């Protein structure tokens, strides 16, 4: 027996410790690994949290940015809206300003026009006719009345053409002659005639045999074909002639009826045609005759109107030359007042045939009637509306009433050549200083002589300037205040007034 091998305890212990050591190391490594992993997880968690925080922060930032953008956009829109509003207000203001300017200009234009109307009445004083002009017009009157073809006549209605007469005659003819109905009837008869056709075919033996063959086929039947054929042939042969004559007679009867009807329609159509032609002829004859009648009536009326015009013109011209006092008074009364002028006035006339002097009592408008506004120009050159000063009103009033006197005189001079001078006494209604009652106050006297008056150029000077060419009297201050004149001395002052050189006014 061998020596039992003794276990190496030391080795075993060493091995055990080595194993324990290894296990401890492994455990330590495992712990380390765990801690490492734990730390790693913690770091990852922390990183994730940081990431999350960062994202939240980013989102918050994005939100804040979006909010800022939104606010910015809102502010921008608000600004835009305010700007649009300001723009709209600006345009509205501009439009209102433009409208106001236009209204102002229209108002100013109206004021200017009204002032012009009131202060330049004298420019309406027309041309004063002379005897030569009247004689020339009388000669022209005679010539034109005697020569129906004279050109550029004073009587302005043209020679009537027969066109109007034709239209009137045509209108009458249309209501008298019913051509449309006659034409419609003719058209209807024509259509009846044209639409009536004969379409029946004339029967032939072959046609009859075909019919009979079909009848035989329908009516004759036999089991024996040859017998059937024979019987059918016999049927056809037997009835051919009879049936042919029957059918032919029937066809001829129809044809006769057609021809009779056609002849009747033709006769009817011819009759309608004749009726249309008769109406046409009658209408044409009527038109010719009626046009002539109407034209003669129109021409007669025109000639009468023309003669009346020339006779009246001649009579008026004769009256202008030699009309008596009654004519003059009546003529003047018929002229005034008229609508040519914007103011109210009244003319009373007395005429002295011995001297050819017309006295005119002229009721003037009041100073209060004068337009109260005027157009002034500011130092910057802008036109503006201003209330007239008392001096403005008085000046305009003076020009107005002097102009009115000239307008009235020019119309009266043209009533008759016999009127050699017109003495106008003009008055207006004024309230006294301590009275509410207006009384008539004469404010000027003027004596217009025909000879001088007809030389004056009324477009060239103001009425106040023109007054200086005539004997006149008024009591007017430098500020155009027209005082009441005193008749006890007024006529004397007028007679002794020395007019300016008339050459300055022609």
């Amino acid at each position, binding site marked *: 027996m061998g020596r039992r091998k003794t276990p190496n305890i030391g080795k075993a212990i060493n091995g055990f410790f080595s194993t324990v050591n290894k296990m401890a190391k492994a455990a330590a490594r495992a712990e380390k690994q765990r801690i490492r992993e734990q730390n790693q997880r913690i770091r990852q968690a922390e990183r994730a949290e940081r990431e999350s925080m960062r994202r939240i922060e980013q989102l918050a930032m994005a939100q804040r940015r979006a909010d800022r953008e939104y606010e910015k956009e809102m502010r921008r829109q608000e600004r835009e809206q305010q700007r649009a509003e300001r723009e709209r207000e600006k345009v509205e203001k501009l439009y209102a300003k433009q409208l106001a300017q236009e209204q102002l200009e229209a108002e100013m234009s109206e004021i200017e026009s009204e002032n012009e109307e009131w202060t330049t009445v004298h420019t309406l004083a027309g041309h004063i006719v002379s005897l030569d002009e009247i004689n020339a017009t009388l000669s022209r009157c005679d010539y034109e009345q005697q020569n129906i073809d004279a050109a550029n006549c004073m009587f302005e209605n043209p020679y009537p053409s027969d066109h109007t007469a034709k239209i009137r005659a045509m209108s009458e003819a249309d209501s008298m002659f019913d051509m449309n109905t006659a034409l419609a009837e003719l058209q209807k008869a024509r259509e009846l005639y044209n639409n009536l056709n004969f379409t029946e075919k004339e029967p032939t033996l072959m046609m009859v045999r075909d019919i009979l063959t079909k009848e035989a086929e329908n009516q004759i039947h036999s089991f024996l074909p040859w017998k059937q054929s024979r019987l059918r042939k016999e049927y056809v042969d037997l009835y051919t002639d009879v049936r042919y004559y029957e059918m032919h007679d029937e066809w001829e009867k129809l044809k006769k009826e057609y021809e009779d009807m056609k002849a009747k329609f033709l006769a009817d159509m011819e009759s309608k045609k004749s009726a249309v032609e008769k109406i046409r002829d009658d209408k044409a004859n009527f038109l010719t005759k009626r046009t002539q009648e109407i034209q003669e009536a129109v021409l007669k009326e025109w000639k009468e109107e023309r003669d009346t015009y020339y006779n009246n013109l001649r009579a008026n011209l004769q009256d202008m030359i030699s009309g008596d*006092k*009654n004519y003059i*008074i009546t003529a003047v009364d018929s002229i005034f007042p008229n609508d040519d002028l914007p103011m109210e006035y009244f003319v*009373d*006339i*007395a*005429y*002295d045939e011995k*001297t050819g*002097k017309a*006295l005119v*009592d002229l009721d003037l408008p009041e100073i209060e009637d004068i337009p109260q506004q005027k157009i002034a120009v500011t130092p910057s050159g802008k036109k503006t509306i201003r209330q007239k000063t008392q001096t403005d009103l008085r000046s305009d009033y003076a020009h107005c009433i002097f102009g009115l006197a000239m307008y009235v005189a020019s119309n009266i001079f043209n009533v008759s050549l016999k009127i050699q001078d017109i*003495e106008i*006494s003009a*008055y207006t209604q004024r309230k006294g200083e301590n009275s509410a009652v207006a009384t*008539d106050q004469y404010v000027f006297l003027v004596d217009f002589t025909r000879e001088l008056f007809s030389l004056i150029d009324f477009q060239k000077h103001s009425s106040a300037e023109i007054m200086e060419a005539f004997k006149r009297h008024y009591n007017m201050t430098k500020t155009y205040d027209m005082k009441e004149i*005193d*008749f*006890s001395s007024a*006529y*004397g002052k007028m*007679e002794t007034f020395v007019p300016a050189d008339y050459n300055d006014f022609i």
Partner: protein
Amino acid sequence: MSTNKTEIEMLGQQSDGKYLVKLDGASYLLDAAQYKAINRKKEMPASRLEIWLKSYADENI
């Protein structure tokens, strides 16, 4: 034409409704409007008044 002042007599309304006016011895019958017009003109010289009165008198014929 004379401008001598002559007194006009405005004699007022008559029983027939007309108004009587005298000038230089001549009488004129006027209607109310004419009378008023002459009254306004009564300070005019007689030569003018005569023309007016004759004219009014002619109108009344």
